[in-house]
């Protein structure tokens, strides 16, 4: 019915660790135990994952540890190489060119200009030897902005937006609490105004009150900036609060996808039912 182009399209994404054997490539159902081949030990981290993300939409990806949900984001951010599959961003070559066939140089350009990622572990997303302002400037320099005054002004706006106190902006995030580090990561991810944000377990391991503040920030960004997001979490409560649509992953496969409230209240798949009914 609605006809706008998706911000992101992922088509038939697979990721294997190991070369695979005849058994697990052709008869995955009988050869695999969980996501691992009984015969050759190859791990099938992702098998044939496809989805779209639309403008302004928050897509939740939920599943247990090892279900493959973070691997999806790693492949999209070029942290890992997919074994097979295609991905298209509307903002890159008008959605006509596969991201995963792009050259290394083009990949860096896509990552710096069109993507923002927030890692579960802030050590991966931030340079702890730089100040918070410099962390944001680094991403902007990577996106070819070299005007120092403009970079600093933008960094300050973003850090204010993510409620980092002004007097601490020149401090290294190393000295920050977990919640503050996540907020600096979010500010950094937003600095190049990407059409899509990739959020990997951003509230995992934070105190509940800090978690609430990060969730509130995500909701606020969504409302004010209108950026599309993929929100990966094992926490159904987080997904329920923020995601419009949700994909349920298990052993590298999508077991169910639907409107988030439908997934929570009328889950169809036995595994989703198990997951939802164990929610406190």
């Amino acid at each position, binding site marked *: 019915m609605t006809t706008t182009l998706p911000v992101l399209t992922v088509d038939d994404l697979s990721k294997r660790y190991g070369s695979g054997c005849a058994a697990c490539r052709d008869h995955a159902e009988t050869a695999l135990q969980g996501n691992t081949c009984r015969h050759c030990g190859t791990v099938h981290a992702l098998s044939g994952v496809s989805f779209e993300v639309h403008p302004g939409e928050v897509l939740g990806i939920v599943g247990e540890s090892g279900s493959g949900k973070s691997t999806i984001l790693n492949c999209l951010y070029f942290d890992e190489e997919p074994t097979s599959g295609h991905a298209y961003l509307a903002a890159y070559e008008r959605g006509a060119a596969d991201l995963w066939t792009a050259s290394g140089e083009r990949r860096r350009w896509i990552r710096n200009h069109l993507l923002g990622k927030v890692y579960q572990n802030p050590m991966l997303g931030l340079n702890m030897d730089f100040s918070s302002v410099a962390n944001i400037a680094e991403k902007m320099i990577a996106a070819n902005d070299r005007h120092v005054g403009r970079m600093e002004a933008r960094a300050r706006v973003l850090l204010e937006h993510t409620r980092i106190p002004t007097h601490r902006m020149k401090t290294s995030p190393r000295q920050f609490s977990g919640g503050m580090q996540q907020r600096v990561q979010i500010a950094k991810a937003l600095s190049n105004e990407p059409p899509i944000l990739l959020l990997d377990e951003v509230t995992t391991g934070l105190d509940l009150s800090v978690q609430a503040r990060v969730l509130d920030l995500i909701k606020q960004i969504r409302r004010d900036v209108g950026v599309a997001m993929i929100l990966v979490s094992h926490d159904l409560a987080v997904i329920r609060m923020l995601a419009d649509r949700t994909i349920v992953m298990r052993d590298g496969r999508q077991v169910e996808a639907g*409107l988030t409230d439908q997934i929570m209240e009328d889950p169809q798949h036995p595994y989703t039912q198990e997951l939802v009914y164990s929610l406190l």
Partner: protein
Amino acid sequence: MNEPVLSLRNVSKAFTLHAQEQRVEGCRDVTFDLAPGEFVGITGRSGSGKSTVLKLIYRTYLPQAGEMRYASEAFGSIDLARADERTVLALRRQEIGYVSQFLRVVPRTTAREVVESAMRETGTDPSAARAEAERLLEHFELPKALWESFPQTFSGGEKLRVNVARAMIKRPRILLLDEPTASLDAHSKSKVRALLASLKTEGTTMLGIFHDLAFMEGVCDRELHMEAGILS
């Protein structure tokens, strides 16, 4: 007579609980029309399938059989049972509202923000959304002192007023009311009643479940009765 805004034809739903190897019937062959501006109440005992019908229309539940024909402003005549997820999300943002007895909000969001952000989702600019949120909270007599507080700390009646204001600020064409008065005292109930009466005069089409039959009479144009998943 006006064309119906919503027509359900033979809508059925059963839930399969895999772990228990159980099949639970929600409703069967539900058929009715909702005319523009009409306020229809659904009565029936707990477990008779009343909420199931509302949740099917809102698509929180996936219908298994039947048709739910809706005359949408944006999309024309569509079958809600088969509409894609993006269309359903767009309708929820713009045309179809849902009020339950529970208020589910992001923690640390103030009452004013809860109501305001519902309107901003429709693309309204921030200052207009804020003004309208404040107008509605005033209209529903939520004490001003609570506007900048978190609804988690509110009483049942206060939460409900935030909940209704959040649904109403988008001026939905259809409002689904899932036992909104269940947890309220008599005074709060009468306020909700007055509120629904005023929505009706503004032309909102409503379909609601109320436990209190006496409360419903005089507000609703007509009542549908459900028993064991079947509309009688």
